[in-house]
């Protein structure tokens, strides 16, 4: 019976959701003891910037890795633009907390690496990589090797590499988690400006509430294990946003307090 209903479900989802990302009834366990995600159902509209926040170990990264196709779906259905997740799909780009630059490639060759793997035309990916490096503030560092770049600069290259892929869905796993506070704010600004130009779907994992509110259209709060969605809060701050101006904006602080309350409840439960 379950096979039939699942097939029906996914057929349904495929028919109605070729332009959105749908997670339905997701349940995931690692071994016997770790229940990483429990009954997670979410739908992301086209071009939406969504953050998932929650205490560490709440399964937010599991959700992202499932979307990326890096781990197999156990229960529930996932559909990205009408198709099930699969690692290496060209309409999905993935970014990690560690910059993952190849030390043997220059900044520019790193930035175009993904596009090159995906067979983008050489001249096109070169000019795109150069443009993006300039956009992330690394003009003049195109020929530098990663060892010569600071932490923040390396993560800027990783951002450029991610945006150089023309994927409509970006999956980001705490991309600024390893940076100091100052650099983090700068990179948030860069990410916002890149995103504003193209409005792709972003699923952004973070444990930093301020970051989530600053960047997102929607903040999803997950509870500690087993990870459940306990709040889904729209962030109606006007765009374009300025990261530094937001720090002084009362509306931003009201939202912060609201989301924080939800997160606290999630931690208690």
């Amino acid at each position, binding site marked *: 019976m379950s096979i039939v209903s699942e097939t029906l479900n996914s057929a349904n989802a495929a028919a109605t959701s070729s332009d959105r990302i749908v997670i339905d009834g997701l349940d995931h366990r690692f071994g016997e003891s770790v229940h990483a995600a429990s009954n997670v159902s979410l739908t992301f509209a086209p071009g939406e910037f969504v953050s998932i926040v929650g205490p560490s170990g709440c399964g937010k990264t599991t959700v992202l890795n499932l979307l990326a196709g890096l781990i197999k779906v156990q229960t529930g259905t996932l559909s990205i633009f009408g198709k099930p997740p699969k690692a290496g799909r060209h309409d999905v780009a*993935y970014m*990690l907390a560690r910059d*993952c630059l190849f*030390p043997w490639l220059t900044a520019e060759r790193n930035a175009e690496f993904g596009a090159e793997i*995906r067979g983008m035309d050489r001249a096109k990916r070169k000019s795109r990589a150069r443009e993006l490096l300039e956009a992330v503030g690394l003009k003049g560092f195109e020929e530098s090797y990663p*060892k010569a770049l600071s932490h923040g600069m390396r993560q800027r290259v990783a951002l450029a590499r991610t945006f150089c892929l023309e994927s409509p869905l970006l999956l980001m796993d705490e991309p600024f988690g390893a940076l100091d506070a100052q650099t983090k704010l700068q990179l948030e600004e860069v990410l916002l400006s890149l995103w504003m130009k193209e409005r792709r779907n972003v699923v952004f994992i973070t444990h930093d509430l301020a970051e989530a509110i600053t960047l997102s259209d929607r903040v999803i709060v997950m509870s500690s294990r087993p990870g459940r969605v306990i709040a889904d809060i729209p962030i109606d701050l006007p765009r374009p946003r300025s990261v530094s101006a937001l720090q002084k904006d009362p509306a931003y602080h009201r939202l912060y307090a609201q989301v924080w309350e939800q997160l606290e409840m999630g931690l208690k439960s």
Partner: protein
Amino acid sequence: MSNPSTVPNFERFETIALVVARIVFLAFFFLGWEYVARNRIVDPLFIGVPSQIAKFLWNGLFVDYSIIRDLVWTLGSTFLAFAIGSVAGIATALIFITWPLFERFSGPFFSALNALPRIALAPLFLLWFGLGIWSKVALGASLTYFIVLSSAVAGIRSTSADHLTLSRTMGASKRQIFMRVTLPSAVPTIFSGLRLGLIYALLGVIGGEIIAAEHGLGQLLSFLAGSFQISGMFSVLLILAILGTVLIEVMNIVEKRLLRWQ
């Protein structure tokens, strides 16, 4: 004094002073040696005479070219041993990576072969490959092979898991991952294996030549020892030390060019 432009000058001065000090030291060393040998404080039969060493070198390098000829034989054998040993080592590493079960199966055999003191194979290789260069090549290659094999396996295994994950999400094929990610990450480790492998190839070749050969610096060395030409032996040792240094230096230069990014 605090003028910063004087600092590099001082460093330069120090470098020159060190070079001068080394030359002075060597001059005194050889003069002392000459004195001790000429006055038979120590029998020159054991330690040779520096002036004789110089004469032998001059003769062998510029007059009858005997040292040059043997040097060419030794270098040729070393190069062949190094090339064969390292290509075979890297090829075996690729087989191990592709079929891990084969690696597990053959692990003990390889360990046993590697643990065997390779010079003990020299008589066997002489029997198989004769007195010519191929028995020396075989000995040198057998040393290089295991060194390069283990470094290549270690290098390929050391690929960062993050790099592999990222490449997967980008949609890289197995071949692309190997050529663009695994291989470049393995290069530094493989290279340190190659450098060591080259020195061991030379060791194997010289060892083989000492045992039995028609040509080569090792053969020359054992001939000179057999006929008590101690000064000649010292000149060959000098050539060998220079040869080893040059080989290492060449590898360092190649490595620097290849691994600019490090």
